[in-house]
């Protein structure tokens, strides 16, 4: 189902190559790590998989289905960003809940799901119990920033 294939993926900005002819087959539940010097195209490749970047050439398939023309928002891929990318205008609780709202999950289920996600990343229940007591993200960089960021991706 979540088998990912990259077929001859290329990315070019003008005359500059971002990614050149990548062919990878990732099977379901496989855990894979990209390693390389900076600027070699790791992030670009991942952004293309997530749908944030359109490949100049080649095809991305998930579960055998061609994904090139599908928006990032509809791909249901999850990605944790380098700078966490937490929404500074929302509490951590709201941050974790955001994808649920976007994907129109019934409201009644939100609380359970948020808690389960928080548990999964071992965030500790404190920050979650009462959404009102949740610190605003912009307060400071707190140890759970990274985790809440990950939690957001746990659905």
């Amino acid at each position: 189902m979540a088998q990912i294939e990259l077929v001859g993926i290329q990315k070019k900005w003008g005359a500059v190559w971002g990614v050149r002819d990548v062919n990878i087959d990732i099977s379901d539940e496989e855990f894979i790590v990209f390693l390389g010097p900076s600027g070699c195209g790791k992030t670009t490749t991942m952004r293309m998989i997530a749908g944030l970047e359109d490949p100049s050439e080649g095809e991305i398939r998930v579960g055998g289905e061609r994904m090139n023309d599908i928006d990032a928002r509809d791909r249901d891929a999850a990605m944790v960003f380098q700078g966490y990318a937490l929404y500074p205008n929302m509490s951590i609780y709201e941050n974790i809940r955001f994808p649920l709202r976007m994907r129109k999950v019934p409201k009644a289920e939100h609380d359970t799901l948020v808690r389960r996600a928080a548990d999964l990343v071992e965030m500790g229940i404190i920050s979650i119990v009462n959404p009102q007591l949740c610190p605003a993200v912009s307060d400071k960089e707190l140890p759970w920033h990274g985790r809440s960021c990950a939690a957001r991706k746990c659905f």
Partner: protein
Amino acid sequence: MASQRRKKNESHLFRYIILGAWALFCLVPVLWFLSIGLRPRTEIITQQPIYWPHFSLDAWHMVWTDWPMGYYLRNSVVSIIGSVVIDLVLAIPAAYSLARYTYRGREDIGFYILSTRMMAPAIVAIPIFFLFKNMDLLDTVWALMIIYAAINLSLITWIIRSYMLDIPKELEDAARTDGASDLRILWEIIIPVILPGIITAGVIGAIFAINEFLFTLLIASTKSAYTMSVALANFTGGSDGVIYNAIALVAFIAFVPVFLVVVAIQKHLSRGLTMGAVKG
């Protein structure tokens, strides 16, 4: 060592002389003008200037009773707030488009918007005048609202755009992978995050609108659309001549709220005034 310390003190002294002198230059005319507002009319233009006048509230009464200043104030407030709302509705999507997408003609569109800021009001005054006349909008608050919105749209768009450029792109990418649509991202993430910038843009737009003179003079030629700035001109016409004490008081009535708001957004001011080009 001792001489060096003295030198340092001297340079401090020199600095305070410069700053103090400039502060006086800024404030003395203002205080003197306030004294004009609080003196009887016969002590304004005289053989020799009067520096210690009698205190009088003549102008104060005149401003609120002889002239419907409350009504002018309402016109000002309605037209300005209306124009800022129009501008925000138009500018936020436009700024988002200019800040976040790459497409053909983006630079040109952005520069076109910017260039409308350069248009001298006098250049378009005559056609605009006839445009509003044909639309039957002369002497209405609507006309003022539209014209203020047009004057400030470029300013507001560019300020908001600059704040949007500051938002890390990752934030949007994250929201996109979370399943948010572009408009959703704008509404739920971008707008709340740059709210201070939006407020700054609105306040600066409002100040420019309060200050606008030529269009208001042409468009608002009857009392039904007079604003504060034209009300000032109102004190200069007619057989009563220039009523300086009333002008002074109106100027202060308009100044106080502007001053308070600007002090509140002081931190963002330089950035707003340069349309985002200088990050203060």
